[in-house]
């Protein structure tokens, strides 16, 4: 049997200001849908005397779509995002990603902000307390060695959120609120390549919304996982394809599940009349070179590297 939940105080603010004040208390951590956090609490992976439930904040769960772009509140549930027909029509990759995160039971509670800040995952981390203790814990939490790369000095746990790459191909901007006020940050800059310190958010800061410019791009997201529902991605790829000058096609590509952060991978444009086969072969090579899957899942890194590149090729062929 699993361990009972540790003791904590749950605060349920109704406004953003109340939430920020609550998060300023020592040891306070934010909780959105809790679909991942509660599991981690159960496994003794969260040291939080105070949890701040963000699900009741007024105005936190709105989707605003206009000709100027799209703003998605951090409190929007994944189910609501997947069901939004406007998002599906103009930002297909976001719809694709939201629709396949975890299972339907999770998506009803899990939120956009929660998925963007999803804790990184590893075979040596997402385990019970006694399992981790018998392995002397690990670098990510309570230990001093990374069992995935014992000679390295950083945690290799994989970022596994599906929404981040789907938003990054549209150059999403994260709106962040914290004790020092509000700021905007390109979503790609919200992440570090360090599994134990994967967010660049300061203590007490939370994502309020993500803002995307208007787009004419065709886009898609796809991933592989062991089980067709509930599981986290072994690799996930988002691509947005735009018409560029002179009939060329310009691709934006982002990957999740392979590194400690979601990666944007630069791809040269496909010129008008260019060789699509050669372009896709180059694309596959670029993805294989950029990603760095580690032994963080039961599935071998080499397979995940090939899977990421194969997903990229498939999506590119569909969109070009």
């Amino acid at each position, binding site marked *: 049997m699993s361990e009972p939940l540790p*003791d904590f105080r749950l605060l349920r603010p109704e406004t953003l200001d109340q939430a920020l004040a609550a998060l300023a208390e020592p040891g306070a951590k934010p909780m959105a849908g809790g679909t991942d956090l509660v599991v981690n609490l159960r496994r003794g992976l969260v040291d939080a005397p105070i949890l701040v439930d963000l699900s009741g904040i007024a105005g936190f769960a709105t989707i605003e779509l206009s000709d100027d772009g799209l703003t998605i509140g951090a409190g929007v549930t994944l189910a609501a995002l997947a069901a939004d027909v406007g998002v599906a029509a103009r930002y297909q990759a976001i719809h694709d990603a939201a629709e396949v995160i975890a299972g339907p039971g999770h998506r009803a509670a899990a939120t956009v902000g929660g998925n963007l800040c999803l804790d990184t995952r590893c075979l040596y981390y997402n385990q019970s307390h006694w399992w981790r203790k018998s392995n002397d814990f690990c670098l990510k939490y309570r230990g001093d060695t990374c069992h995935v790369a014992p000679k390295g000095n950083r945690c290799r746990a994989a970022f596994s959120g599906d929404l981040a790459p789907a938003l990054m191909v549209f150059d999403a901007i994260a709106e962040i609120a914290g004790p020092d006020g509000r700021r905007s940050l390109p979503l790609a800059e919200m992440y570090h390549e360090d599994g134990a310190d994967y967010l660049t958010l300061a203590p007490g800061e939370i994502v309020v919304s993500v803002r995307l410019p208007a787009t004419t791009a065709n886009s898609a997201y796809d991933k592989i996982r062991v089980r067709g529902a509930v599981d986290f991605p072994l690799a996930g790829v988002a691509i947005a394809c735009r018409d560029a000058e002179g009939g060329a096609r310009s691709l934006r590509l982002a990957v999740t599940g392979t590194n400690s952060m979601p990666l944007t991978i630069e791809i040269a444009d496909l010129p008008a009349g260019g060789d699509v086969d050669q372009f896709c072969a180059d694309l596959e090579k670029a993805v294989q070179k950029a990603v760095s899957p580690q032994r963080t899942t039961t599935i071998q890194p080499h397979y995940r590297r090939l899977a990421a590149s194969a997903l990229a090729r498939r999506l590119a062929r569909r969109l070009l």
Partner: protein
Amino acid sequence: MKRIISLTINGRKAEDAISDNTLLIDYLRDQKHLTGAKKGCDGGECGACTVLINGAARPACITLAATCDGAEIETIEGQARGGRLTALQRAFHENLGTQCGFCTPGMILSAEALLRHNPDPDDAEIRTALGSNLCRCTGYTKIIASVKVAAEEMRS
């Protein structure tokens, strides 16, 4: 920390003292003695604990009871009315959609949530809606058939 939550469970008002760290599954099973929702994986992966929260099928084992203050909860115990099984319960019974029965309350509630907003789902939609629920007996074929039979009966 303790707190009082007020909610509706299977149509009845309830008001109870719980701890902030009480899970919905423990509240339902231990405090309300509603043991239909099962603890399987205890980590949101198997769906045996599925209940309806404001009409949405959600895993009770990863839901804090405190976040259900004011919510409407439905469990398998509240499905049959006056001793009469629902269309889904009958269909699972008559089409061998249930074997050992451990996953069945979760399966039925996930299917119930689906049929309430989609009375005529195709196979793919049923599979997606039951994606959070594991069954180790039936091989799923008869479960999907049961949902289709129930949907048909509810439409007629």
